């Protein structure tokens, strides 16, 4: 496969004294998270509840998308997180949310590896309940990528591929970090992502709400 050309930030007509870099500075330390963690470490029950409220949706999103038993995974994730909270470094570059994502990701990988029987995901139609068929490929593409269809298509991916797609595209994790947690090479991670996207597109196209040409 031929790679895309390098991305360049080269200006066509550079004006005087202008720096072409235009990066938004990284936000500083999230003081509120640190204060919350301190309160949690002090044993403040309100802080614990606040932490669960703050991180729970992220943890649940990961569990429900990446584990066949999300409720069990959610509780296991918190049981895994509580004793590790002190390892979070507020001075590091990762936010608490990112750190949590990584920790939960690692747990879900372990759970996946421990499962001797992997659930079989049947491959029925994604969503044919609505008569949304169209002759226009553009409209069909948009409808194919409808949230519920996309979610259903994601569920059809093998777990390792699904983890990479979800973590990279939905949670914005760098592939290098995902590869590290998965215990695979960065190149393998990339190729898995590529295959996963191709598979997703295949599933979505196969069930696209497009009228067949006569």
């Amino acid at each position, binding site marked *: 496969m031929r790679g895309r050309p390098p991305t*360049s930030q*080269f200006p066509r*007509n550079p004006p*005087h004294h202008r*720096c072409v870099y235009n990066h938004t500075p990284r936000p500083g330390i999230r003081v509120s998270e640190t204060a919350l963690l301190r309160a949690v470490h002090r044993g403040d029950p309100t802080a614990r509840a606040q932490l669960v409220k703050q991180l729970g*949706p992220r943890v649940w999103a990961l569990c429900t998308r990446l584990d066949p038993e999300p409720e069990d995974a959610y509780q296991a994730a918190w049981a895994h997180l*509580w004793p590790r909270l002190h390892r979070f470094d507020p*001075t590091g570059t990762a936010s608490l949310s990112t750190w949590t994502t990584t920790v939960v990701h690692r747990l879900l990988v372990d759970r996946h590896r421990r499962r001797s029987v992997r659930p079989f995901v049947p491959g029925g139609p994604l969503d044919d309940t609505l008569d949304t068929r169209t002759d226009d490929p553009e409209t069909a593409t948009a409808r194919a990528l409808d949230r519920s269809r996309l979610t259903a298509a994601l569920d059809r991916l093998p777990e390792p591929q699904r983890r990479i797609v979800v973590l990279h*595209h939905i949670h914005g994790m760098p592939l290098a970090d995902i590869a590290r947690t998965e215990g695979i090479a960065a190149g393998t991670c990339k190729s898995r992502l590529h295959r996963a996207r191709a598979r997703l597109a295949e599933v979505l196209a196969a069930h696209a709400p497009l009228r067949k040409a006569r």
Partner: protein
Amino acid sequence: MTDHPDLHDRIEDALPEALAALPADLPPPPELDAAVLATAPPIRRGWPRWTAPIALAAGVLLGIGLAPSSAPTLTLTPGAHHIEGPATVVVPGGTLHLDGTAAIQFSQATEPNPGTVRDTPRTPATPEPTMFTPRDLLAAGSGAAVTIAILAGTGTWSASDASPDHVLTTGDALQVAPNRKVVRTVAVPPTTEDPQTLPAAKEQLAALRQRNTELEEARDALDFEVKALRGQLSAYGATATEWPDDLPDPYRPEPFTEWAESVIADVPGFAIAEVDCSEFPCLVLVESGPDAPLAEDGSIDWDAAGRAFADQKPPGVPEDTESSAGISVMETNKDGERSGVMVLYNAPDSHMADGIQERLQVRTRDAAQRLAEADATAQ
């Protein structure tokens, strides 16, 4: 399947955006959160430094709590004793039922030394050179068979000759003559529970504890600030980037420098001023020469040099390797004479970790400044 051959490609192209639009957070069922909180284990973050005295105090309290309710019976031998009650102290001439602390001097001497024993209460507010202390009292006891001073709490002296019991309270002292008669009781200045000094001492202790807490909080806040500043420094690119272990060889200093020089050498009007490989990735600083091409608006046309560098990959890099290149141009126009510097990098996309861009920004600025200063010095 659909008959539109390009639908698959359309969908695949639109996938990243559609996936990114999916919510990263989903609300968990409330009962699950409740279960999580109910089963949350206690969190420990090491042992704070104040836990040792607390543990010690707890141990003492536990020891007290586990102590048998019946007071031990102590039979004293001659000498000075410091007794912590409750205890029953047996000495010649009687028994002391102590519920507190007492100093007891038991000697074989027969005569008290009246010069140091006082029979009037001491007032701490009016100290005298012969301040009466328990030590004085014990010294005074050298003339008696037994001298008992109640330092805290109460004690009941039961003489063995069936004389009436003496109830002693804090500050009271009692001397038992060799004939086993109580010869005198005195009051000694309390050592720990002076009704006048104790509140002041407690107040001072509370103030010191409060101050200590404030200082600890201030220190913690400063510690946190230092950490936060370090984190920000790191986040804003003040920390050098390590060379990745798995970086392909063509991007390492020597081959990369060689390649960069060959690329720029092919572009007329520009020359490499410096290749900074002090950290990953290498930065290439390109200067414009007097014969550098100009764009339509009269500015230096950096395009050729920039693209020559950014649109290629070092030899030996696999074709499917995605690379990332960055270019920064600084140009001056002094009296119509244009000059400038272009800072370039070219590195594998997979190795451009978080934070590198910020670091590159800092390095680019520093490099440009370094070149400008070198030019100014040369002129």
